[in-house]
């Protein structure tokens, strides 16, 4: 046990062990740098503990149970019951396996692990406050630092996550019961993933969204496929309404919303999940002591190498301004920062960042939409393949949605894709790779794709853009 303030030194100090920080630390150690990783809560950060992983575990089980219960068409007669506390335990097991893995991988690569909260003393040292009482503190001096402190859910007035009726996404994913009635505030990707999941698990779900559609940022025809399915699942979606507060009522609660014109509505519920976005965590480390300043929303600005305004201090992940708050962006930024410190000729030069939404069906997008391509000065040509014309999609009984590919004319360079449908999260990988490679429509169209697979739809969309699709009519 360490008591009193002792000082140690490290070449690279990484603050936060989420997918930004632990990846940065491992890569730094792989580059031969003496590396220390500080984490105040749990290895794996938001992603492994409260985000990507637990949500996808819940989604798998909810999908399987729901699908099996609704597959009479395919000859399957079943009445699945989900034991939510068993599901929670299984999910916890998956999380433990992965976070344990992260810890082991850090150690195996020679990363020094320190538990505690890091606060800057100056631009070359942090003080670590350990969690337990009387644990004393520790000063760590560093040559370079990588800040990877991530993000937290945004709270809105009138809804306090401390109340047991008010859920953050983290609370929802820790639950071992399914509320009978769930109001979800926010129709973004986290809100829609959890709405779908809880609806499939048997909750009566109501979504309240301030804007006029779900999944802002996605094109209307992409969102429409998910919205239609959500409707079919019985999810009640209400637009143009902002949640203003809640009160207890009988056994449950009453959630109040308000339109811009001041019109009020009330929704009965047992829990209210607030999923209106996440804000960066830049206020836990006394960054001002290092001469750093966050922007007005709390983000840190960085250059192509992920350096902040203080040259030897880098920032990666959700805390960084201007890049999407996604785990794989955090990891990529972590790699860039670590390799840059090691003197490698790297930069965050990705041409496109893929993103997935694990709703029903899934969404996978990468690069530019047709509109964005036009705005960027390209002359976009677009090709589309509906999954209802895909043999593989029909045999999986999931044939809603489409693959759309956007390219430049006449160069044929692939610029983007919007995919909504089965395994969209996986299918987008090929297009992301095509974009990074500077590949053309012809490259994609003339590569043999295995039959019968969903990936054929990517090829068909490219053929369609070239006016020579086989399984769909060319315009």
């Amino acid at each position, binding site marked *: 046990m360490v008591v009193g303030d002792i000082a140690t030194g490290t070449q690279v100090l990484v603050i936060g062990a989420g997918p930004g920080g632990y990846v940065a630390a491992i890569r730094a150690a792989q580059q031969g740098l003496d590396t220390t990783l500080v984490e105040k809560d749990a290895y794996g950060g938001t992603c492994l503990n409260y985000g990507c992983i637990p949500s996808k575990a819940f989604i798998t089980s909810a999908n399987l149970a729901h699908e099996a219960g609704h597959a009479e068409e395919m000859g399957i007669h079943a009445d699945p019951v989900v034991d939510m506390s068993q599901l929670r335990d299984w999910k916890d097991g998956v999380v433990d396996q992965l976070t344990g893995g992260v810890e082991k991988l850090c150690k195996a690569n020679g990363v020094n692990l320190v538990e505690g909260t890091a606060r800057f003393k100056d631009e070359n040292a942090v003080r670590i406050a350990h969690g337990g009482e009387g644990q004393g503190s520790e000063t760590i001096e560093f040559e370079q630092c990588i800040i990877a402190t991530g993000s937290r859910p945004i709270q809105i007035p009138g809804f306090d996550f401390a109340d047991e009726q008010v859920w953050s996404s983290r609370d929802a994913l820790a639950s071992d019961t399914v509320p009978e009635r769930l109001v979800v505030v926010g129709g973004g990707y986290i809100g829609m993933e959890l709405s779908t999941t809880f609806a499939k698990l048997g909750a009566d779900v109501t979504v309240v969204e301030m804007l006029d559609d779900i999944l802002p940022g996605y094109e209307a025809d992409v969102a429409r496929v998910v919205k239609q399915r959500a409707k079919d699942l019985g999810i009640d979606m209400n637009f143009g309404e902002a949640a203003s507060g809640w009160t207890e009522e009988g056994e449950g609660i009453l959630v109040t919303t308000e339109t811009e014109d001041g019109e009020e509505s009330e929704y009965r519920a047992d829990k209210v999940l607030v999923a209106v976005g996440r804000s960066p965590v830049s206020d836990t480390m006394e960054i001002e002591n290092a001469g750093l300043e966050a922007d007005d929303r709390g983000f840190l600005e960085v250059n192509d190498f992920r350096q902040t305004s203080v040259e030897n201090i880098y920032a990666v992940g959700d805390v960084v301004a201007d890049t999407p708050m996604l785990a794989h962006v955090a990891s990529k930024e972590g790699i860039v920062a670590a390799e840059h410190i090691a003197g490698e000729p790297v930069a965050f030069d990705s041409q496109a960042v893929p993103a997935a939404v694990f709703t029903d069906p899934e969404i996978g997008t990468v690069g530019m939409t047709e509109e964005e391509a036009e705005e*960027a000065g390209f002359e976009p040509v677009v090709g589309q393949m509906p999954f209802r014309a895909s043999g593989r999609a029909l045999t999986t009984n999931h044939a809603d949605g489409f693959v759309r590919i956007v390219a430049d004319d006449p160069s044929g360079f692939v610029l983007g894709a919007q995919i909504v449908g089965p395994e969209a999260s996986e299918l987008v990988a090929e297009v992301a790779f095509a974009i990074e490679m*500077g590949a053309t429509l012809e490259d994609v169209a003339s590569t043999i794709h295995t039959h019968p697979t969903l990936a054929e739809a990517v090829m068909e969309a490219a053929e369609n853009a070239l006016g020579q699709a086989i399984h769909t009519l060319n315009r």
Partner: protein
Amino acid sequence: ADEDEDTGGRVFAPPSVRRLARELDVELETVSGSGPSGRITEGDVRAAAEGEEETEAES
């Protein structure tokens, strides 16, 4: 697209070629690609780097 339009920093070169360009201190924007539709290849970057050296040696 028109050659002269500014297309938002998009470069048409594989990641390995982009890395090589940084390693050899070659500005990708100044390289004309010999690949399909003008895609920049490893050879283009190496040639540009050598050209640079030659120019430097001459001056």
